[in-house]
Each structure stands twice: as structure tokens, then as C-alpha cells.
């Protein structure tokens, strides 16, 4: 029963580029229904780790078990089956530039299921609505969208096959504070109302302090801290202290409620 609960297990990941070891024994796990943030200084390999988890980049050592499957020793069919059960949102959306938003969102569905148009397109529209985009956004091309809308379209596509876990790579980058807070609410909505687990790589302090259940800190190639943000903030590591110091300077402190 506990095994069903653990949706992702990262076990002793080692990543080396030539002489340099970016990860030197990174381990953590995620349970279903959590919103977890992965933070760390620039160059600590957060995005690399995310790419290793979703099967885009092979780690030098260690194992990753996603939805019960070992990502790097699975067969092609097993990996394809796992890919249908998670979604990924890349930093700038990575939408297919020759398709409009609706067709972008429809692509995963069309590839996996054979649905008649009168079932497919309302489903696509629902995904677009869940990502908090207006209905007209479906007919737009990615080049016609603002940064925030592109990211929402990317989330709509990640939601297409109703995944069990979604990975987001710095969704808040390049967004104004209002849109970034709306994104936080969207992430919380995915977890609370749709029952999806979320792992987000982020730098955004407001996200960490308002909507996350847990924070994992990556530093010097290992997991430096792993727990609710209030606990992590109290760690006496100089980097952690400096990272959160802006917040304490303004007198914010840990705000564990799930946003306003």
C-alpha cells in the first residue's frame, strides 16, 4: 500500500560531465498528491535532474523509479507506457510552432486514442479551460501568444491525457508577479482538485512560501534539505539562509497557508 503512494523515487543519482560531477548521490522521493519544489543555485543541475527523471538525459549512475518503472532500464514499450502517465511543461512551453494551440493540446490524445471529432474537440477545449486560457486561445498559433499564455498552453498539453504527475521547469520565469501568482494557484488547483502530483523546479520564493507542501534543496551535488518550507528555512546552512533572507528581511517569514 505504501508503494502505491510513492510516485517517484530518485535513488543515488550521479551525473558527470567529463571531470565535473553535477550530481553526486541525489536521493529523494515523492508521494502522490504532493506539490514539491526543487530549488538550488544556478548550475546545481536542477533542470538536468528533471530531464533525467523524464527520460531525456541518461544519468551517469543511480536509478529513477517513476510510477513503478525504472526509467533507465525499462524497455521501449514500458517507457512509452510510463510516458502516457506523466506530463511535462518545458520552460518556454516548447509548443509545436506549426500547429495552433488546440492541435498542440490534441496531439497526445490523437496519438494514443482513436476518438471521433465530436468527442476529441470538446475534450481539448476542457483542457484549455482547465489551464485557465480563454476559449478563443485554441485557434491561435504559438507565435501569437504572450509568454504567460504560452506556458498555460503548455500546461494544457501536459494535461491532455490526464497524467498522474506533472513536471514543471521554472514556470514562473519571465512572468510578471500577478501572472506568477496565478500560476501558483493553478498548480495548487492541479493538486487539490484534479489529484495530480506536481514537481516544480523554481526560483520563486513566493511559490515556495505560499503553495508548496515540501521543498527539496539541491546543493553541491546532493540534497541539502528536504521538508516543508518552514523547516527548510530554519536550516543553518549559509546558502539556505541567504536564499530566504530577502523574505525575512521584509518580515514575511514562513507562510504555510495555501495562498489566498
Amino acid at each position: 500500500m505504501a508503494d502505491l503512494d510513492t510516485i517517484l523515487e530518485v535513488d543515488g543519482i550521479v551525473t558527470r560531465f567529463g571531470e565535473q560531477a553535477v550530481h553526486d548521490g541525489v536521493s529523494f522521493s515523492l508521494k502522490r498528491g504532493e506539490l514539491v519544489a526543487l530549488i538550488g543555485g544556478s548550475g546545481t543541475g536542477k533542470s538536468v535532474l528533471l530531464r533525467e527523471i523524464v527520460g531525456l538525459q541518461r544519468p551517469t549512475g543511480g536509478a529513477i523509479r517513476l510510477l513503478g518503472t525504472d526509467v533507465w532500464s525499462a524497455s521501449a514499450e514500458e517507457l512509452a507506457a510510463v510516458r502516457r502517465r506523466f506530463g511535462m511543461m518545458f520552460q518556454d512551453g516548447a509548443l509545436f510552432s506549426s500547429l495552433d494551440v488546440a492541435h498542440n493540446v490534441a496531439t497526445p490524445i490523437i496519438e494514443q486514442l482513436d476518438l471521433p471529432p465530436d468527442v476529441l474537440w470538446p475534450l481539448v477545449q476542457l483542457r484549455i479551460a482547465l489551464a485557465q486560457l480563454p476559449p478563443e486561445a485554441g485557434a491561435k498559433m504559438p507565435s501569437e501568444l504572450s509568454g504567460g499564455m504560452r506556458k498555460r498552453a503548455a500546461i494544457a498539453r501536459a494535461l491532455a491525457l490526464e497524467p498522474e504527475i506533472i513536471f514543471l521547469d521554472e514556470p514562473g520565469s519571465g512572468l510578471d508577479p500577478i501572472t506568477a501568482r496565478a500560476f501558483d494557484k493553478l498548480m495548487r488547483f492541479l493538486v487539490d482538485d484534479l489529484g495530480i502530483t506536481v514537481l516544480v523546479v523554481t526560483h520563486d520564493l513566493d511559490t515556495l512560501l505560499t503553495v508548496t507542501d515540501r521543498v527539496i534543496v539541491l546543493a553541491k551535488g546532493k540534497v541539502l534539505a528536504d521538508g516543508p518550507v518552514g523547516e527548510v528555512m530554519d536550516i543553518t546552512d549559509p546558502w539556505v539562509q541567504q536564499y530566504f533572507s530577502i523574505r525575512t528581511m521584509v518580515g514575511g517569514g514562513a507562510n504555510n497557508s495555501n495562498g489566498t
Partner: protein
Amino acid sequence: MNAAEDWARLEQRDGRATLCLEGSWRVTSLPALDAALDALKPSGRIDALDGAGLEALDTAGALAALRFIQSTGADPAAAARENFGAKHLRILEVVASRLDDVVAAKETRRPGLFATFGRHAADIAGLLVGHLNFLGLTAAGLGQVLLNPRRLRIKELAAQFEQVGINAIPVVALVTFLIGVVFAYLLGLQAEKYGASIFVVDGVALGMAREFSPIIVAVIVAGRSGAAFTAQLGTMRLTEETDAIRVLGLSPMDVLVIPRLLALMVALPLLVFVGNVMGNVGAMFMADTMLGITPTTYVERLQTALRARHFVVGIVKAPVFAFFISIIAIRMGMTVSRDTRSIGVNTTSTVVQSIVSVILLDAVFAVVLQKLGI
């Protein structure tokens, strides 16, 4: 064994039609759900949903159920929800509150043949006007460099010359050598019949010098350097490098355009010369094998047959071709729009436009030279 009943059943309870959901109402089951709902054929409004037999529910399943109820004339938001767990109730609520946004997609009507043709014609007209505009800008830029030679950036010019000229020599040499072989073979086939084999030399020398070398080399260069200019400048536009150049007070015309233009205009005649030589070398090889014309004989005949004016005509065509290829390639690179498809589209267009222009210009040359009697 009614498969439809594994998914949904209609029941009458307290005078109200109820849709009972069974099994796993998830996106992966949608095809089966759709078929099952189609098979139900309700006689009136369905005002309630029952989830007692439900194993799993996601937004896709909820959407299917709620839209089905909506199609019977009921209000999905007001329908009663019986025997659902808390999580499933939440999902139903999430979907019900967004049903208004879920409208059937509008059919995008494909424009007819006539309209498409008209649109393409208008696009080409706009393209040509834009090219003319850019030609003027470039001429002005060239003029400024002539008046103020210090503006000429020698380093960029040399780098471009190496790339479009020197590095192209192997390809040009190989292709023109092979053209020479084939051309000599073709002419030889006919000339042999009339005992006029020696005139193969005339044919190849004149043909290569006046027409084939300039055209073939221009086409190779269009594909090689034209495409490269467009792709390079297009990417620089996407990464905002051209904007950075402008903001630093430098002129993209001086830094990017003029060096490429001049490099190509100098390199192409030289490449045409290489083509001439290699074409004749190839022909020499074929003439020896097929017709028994020794290289010594070939060169002797060449000296008589190839008058200077034929050579000059070919060499003069080259900078003209180069000018137009550059203008097209550079402009297509600079008009790349902000999406990844655009670079590929523009690069393809550059090569097509360049080749067509070269052939057009060659035709113009042919007519003009014929009238002039050269």
C-alpha cells in the same frame, strides 16, 4: 453480454431518470464510453448521476457524462449527484463549472483553389516590392562604403570570402568536372557521326565558358551560401543579435550585409573560372577515352576555339548573379518571423528564388548579347 452495460445504465428512481456510471471513467476508456453512451438512447431528460459502481473518474470521463446529460436537455450543473466520493465530486464540479467554455470546435474552412492562388500571387508581389526596397537600401550602403572606404570591414569580408569562396572550391571543381565529362560525351555522340569529333572541344569550351559554368556555379552557390546566409541571419534575428548590433551603434548593413555581398561578388567570378578549367579537364578526359583526342590536341584546339569574348561573357555574368543571390538570401534572413518554422521556410524560399533569378538573368543576358552581336 451487453458491453455497454459495463459502463453506464439508465435507471428510474423517484420518477427521475438517473445515469449510473460503472467501471473506470478515465480518458483511456473514452472510446468505449462514447460507444456505450451512444447505445443508451434515453427517452427523456436525465436529471441525476449515480457513482456507486464507479471505480475511477477523471475530468475526461466527467466531461463525457455531463455532456451526455446536457444532450438530453437537462442542466448538468443542476443534476443531482448521488453516491460519489469527495474526490469525484470535486472533479464533477470542476468540469461542470467549465462546460460553457467547452463548445464544439468551429470548422476551419479551407480556402478554395482560386483564393489560395490569389493569396500566393499577392504574397509574391509583396515579396518583390520588399526586395526592390532592400536593393535600394543596399545600393545606398554600398555607395557609402565607396565614399568612405574606412567603413569597409575587412575582417568580416575576409571571413565571408573564405566561407563562400575558398570552401566552395572542392564542390564546384567536382561538379563542373563531371558536367564537363557528360557534356563532352553528349556532344561526342553526335560529332562522331559526322567525323567532326574535334568540334567537341569547341562545344565544351564555349558552352562551359558562356553558360554552363556560370549557371551551375551560381546554383551551387545559391544552395550553399544563399541558404547559409538566410539561416545565419534568421537565427541572429531570433536570438536578437541583430538588435544588439544596432543598439551598440553599429550598422547591420556595414557589419552583416556589405561583407557578405562583396565577398560573394568577388568569389563567384573566381569560382566560375575554376568551373571553366575543371569543365574542360573533365571533357579532356572523356574526349581522350571516347574519341581519341589527346590532351595535347585538345589544348591546341582550345586555343583556337575559345575566343576571349566567350570567357569574358561568362565572367561578367558572375557578379550579377552574385548580387541578386546575396540580396535575396540576406533579405529572406532578415525577414524571418518569430517561430521555428520560419527559418526553414525562408531558407527554402531563398534557394528557389535564387535559382529562378539566375535562370531569368541568364535569359536576359542571352537576349541582350544576341542583339549586341557579342
